[in-house]
């Protein structure tokens, strides 16, 4: 009898042990393998390492000409104060060809600039300082000590103030405010005064922009505007867009908006004989028309430039500045959005027209030069294209058509954008790593993994290129890296909502495993007690 009981117990114990074994050896691995999510490996260490790397640009500065020995060292000390840019100064004497060019007396500075640029071949991203000969061509420098050329050359007199030259070089290399901003990378509301205004005006740094030119004609039955927008854009904006191609892709479109006007209430000013539009009415003007501008398809940031032909009963319409004086340019800039200009037309000659003639619409052509000059001015403020202040000491050579931008301006813009990109990519990738680390069961598809690896690689290359002064490559790398990092960050599968956070794991697994494991664990207790009894009996027997 005892043996049978014992046998039953033994069978029970074996069964319980069997259950436990199957649960642990088969169940756990199957559960583990079937619930692992696919996570492509990401280069966390590289991202961490690259985030802490100090970034700076290197600019090569070539000093050409006969100068005193301390010139180069003094200039170097003065330029050291710029935080995110390091200068590599070299000094050499001019070659024979360059000397002949410098010595020739019958040429203007712009010709000299052109010829010298062809001879010296300043590389992309670098600058050259050419020191003019003493006592030679005194009138070529036009009584100023520093003249900035159209490409990458600065002309200085031998006894120029090095402080002035240093500040000119600093301004040419990168917008001073932009360099400070990129170095610190603070959000808008923490920036002080002027930085904040600059940062609030310029468009966010993105690889491409959509520029839309809108001609608003509120009364098409009274005014038929004939404007060849395509020709105007090709002639004026086309060259600028082509010059900026290496830095940002700008696509330009134009449209005409009929039967829509700006909802403003100007007052007739008898003193000036025009309708005065006070400046405090301007902030609310574009809200009503904004929904009608722009594309509903592209998601690139858009810039709108509006040319407004006023209504017949509000013509001529002139904006007045806060002190009551009419604004000659008759245009205003809306930060980060674009610009609006009011294009008045000559008044109707009422003297010798019959009533029927007065009712028929009048045809008019717009002044393309004025319109496009305003558009380009606004574009310069928005991008922003760096400029230097002209003083009696410092002068700039005006750009020639069709090249509206000088080479150093494009370089400076590229440099500012590279700095902005680097800061942006760092926040994106760091944030992505944090998100992925927090939700341990988030699926990282191969697509996203590929983008992150690509972004990290090119980010490293961009920083490397910037430190070595290879500006064009740096821009290319940074643009690609930024696009890939954004594509990975905004991928639809990276939504945290789709995955269970860690603290909800217990709520899912406990109801699943507890009902199964409780009987097994309790029966294990029985197994162990039987085992102990068996041992004791063995000992007894022995």
């Amino acid at each position, binding site marked *: 009898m005892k043996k049978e009981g014992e046998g039953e117990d033994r069978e029970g114990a074996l069964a319980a042990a069997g259950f436990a074994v199957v649960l642990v050896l088969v169940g756990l691995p199957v559960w583990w393998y079937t619930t692992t999510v696919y996570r492509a490996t990401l280069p966390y260490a590289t991202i961490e390492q690259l985030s802490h790397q100090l970034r700076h640009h290197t600019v090569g500065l070539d000093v050409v000409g006969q100068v005193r020995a301390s010139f180069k060292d003094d200039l170097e000390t003065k330029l050291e104060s710029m935080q995110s840019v390091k200068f590599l100064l070299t000094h050499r004497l001019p070659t024979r060809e360059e000397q002949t060019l410098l010595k020739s007396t019958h040429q203007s500075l712009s010709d000299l600039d052109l010829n010298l640029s062809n001879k010296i071949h300043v590389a992309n991203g670098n600058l050259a300082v050419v020191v003019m000969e003493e006592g030679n061509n005194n009138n070529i420098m036009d009584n100023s000590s520093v003249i900035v050329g159209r490409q990458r050359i600065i002309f200085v007199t031998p006894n120029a103030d090095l402080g002035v030259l240093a500040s000119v070089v600093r301004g040419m290399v990168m917008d001073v405010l932009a360099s400070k901003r990129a170095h610190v990378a603070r959000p808008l509301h923490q920036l002080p005064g002027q930085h904040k205004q600059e940062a609030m005006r310029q468009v966010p740094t993105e690889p491409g922009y959509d520029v839309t030119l809108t001609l608003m004609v509120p009364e098409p039955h009274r005014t038929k505007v004939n404007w060849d927008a395509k020709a105007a854009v090709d002639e004026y904006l086309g060259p600028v867009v082509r010059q900026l191609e290496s830095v940002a892709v700008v696509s330009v479109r134009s449209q005409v908006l009929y039967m829509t006007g700006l909802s403003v209430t100007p007052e007739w000013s008898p003193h000036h004989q025009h309708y005065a539009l006070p400046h405090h009415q301007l902030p609310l003007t574009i*809200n009503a028309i904004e929904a009608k501008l722009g594309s509903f398809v592209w998601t690139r940031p858009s810039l709108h430039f509006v040319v407004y032909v006023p209504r017949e009963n509000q013509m001529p319409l002139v904006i007045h500045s806060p002190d009551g004086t009419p604004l000659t340019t008759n245009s205003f800039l809306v930060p980060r959005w674009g610009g609006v200009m009011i294009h008045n037309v000559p008044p109707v000659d009422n003297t010798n027209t019959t009533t029927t003639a007065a009712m028929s619409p009048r045809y008019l052509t717009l002044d393309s030069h004025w319109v496009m000059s305003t558009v380009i001015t606004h574009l310069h403020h928005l991008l922003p294209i760096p400029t230097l202040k002209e003083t009696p000491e410092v002068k700039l050579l005006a750009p020639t058509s069709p090249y509206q931008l000088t080479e150093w301006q494009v370089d400076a813009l590229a440099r500012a954008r590279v700095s902005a990109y680097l800061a942006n990519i760092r926040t994106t990738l760091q944030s992505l790593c944090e998100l992925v680390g927090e939700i341990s069961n988030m699926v990282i598809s191969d697509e996203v993994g590929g983008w992150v690896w690509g972004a990290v690689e090119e980010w490293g290359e961009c920083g490397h290129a910037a430190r070595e002064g290879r500006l064009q490559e740096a821009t290319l790398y940074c643009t690609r890296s930024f696009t890939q990092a954004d594509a990975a960050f905004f991928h639809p599968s990276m939504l945290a909502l789709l995955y269970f956070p860690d603290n909800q794991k217990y709520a899912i697994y406990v109801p699943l495993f507890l009902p199964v494991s409780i009987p097994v664990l309790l029966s294990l207790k029985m197994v162990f007690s039987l085992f102990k009894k068996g041992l004791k009996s063995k000992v007894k027997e022995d």
Partner: protein
Amino acid sequence: MKLYYYLCLLLVCCLPISITARDDGTSGYVKGKTHTNNWAVLVDTSRFWFNYRHVANVLSMYRSVKRLGIPDSQIILMVADDMACNPRNPRPATVFNNAHQHINVYGEDVEVDYRGYEVTVENFVRLLTGRLAPSTPRSKRLLTDDGSNILIYMTGHGGDGFLKFQDSEEITNVELADAFEQMWQKKRYNEILFIIDTCQAASMYEHFYSPNILAIASSLVGEDSLSHHVDPAIGVYIIDRFTYYALEFLERVTPDSTKTLAEFLQVCPKRVCISTVGVRQDLYKRDPKTVLVSEFFGSVRSVELTERILDIPKCGGKGKVAFNDSQGEASTKENVKKSLQRKKLVYANQLPISYTK
């Protein structure tokens, strides 16, 4: 003796001045506006006829925000059910917030971006974080940048820590806080004004941890938000108390008004709202007394007058402003005909089905 008296008086007068001066320096409040554009995300999460008031709530906000200037392209309106064209609506194509039909909040041009069953928790969080499918149209995206002030208004049925979406799912306060944090990390907002009008609404802002968010809730945890009144013709409550008084306040605001957020925070005292309005200000560094209502509800741009334009060399031919008389008509007709003959009409490339790299 007299001198001593006067010195004491002077000291006493100077003391408050010095205290306030020190206060300004160390109070930590940031002055001046820092936003460049305004967006609004208005969400109504409940459907069915007996939730008419939630649709009226969100449309009241939509109306105010549009009236004060935010363009439709910068408003994302999510309405879960169509009350205006519901067969039970005795006054079709209108949604009133008042039994005496004072204001038709449906208006004449309402643009609903997410409608009906598209209003889901997933779509809402995707909208906030920007992780939308590549084919999502621009009107359904929140294209904000680091200078955008966003007004987020949510209404529906809520509980302690969640908000019910369409009777089938909920969004928790943790998910909402995480969504805002994702927005902050990618610099997709400057400041957020978060208004929520549900029962136990204050629980929804408990877990926020991103900076620059000012949250207003129509009731505290444990309280219910109550509706305002019934319209006998419609048969259900048509507006909630908090939104009713908020709308009353906003109706008196003009696009250039100087009413501050501090006044808006007082819009529904306990004696009219019955529930207590909860406010979370610790994440918001500016003093609501210095923030204008139009910084969130309106769209006042900062404008820079152009002092001078660049001297661009002239290109090509046609320059001066001219207007032609009768000859113009003939010549333009010819030009038009010629241009039509020359131009070959093509369809625009309208389908953005691939990522532009």
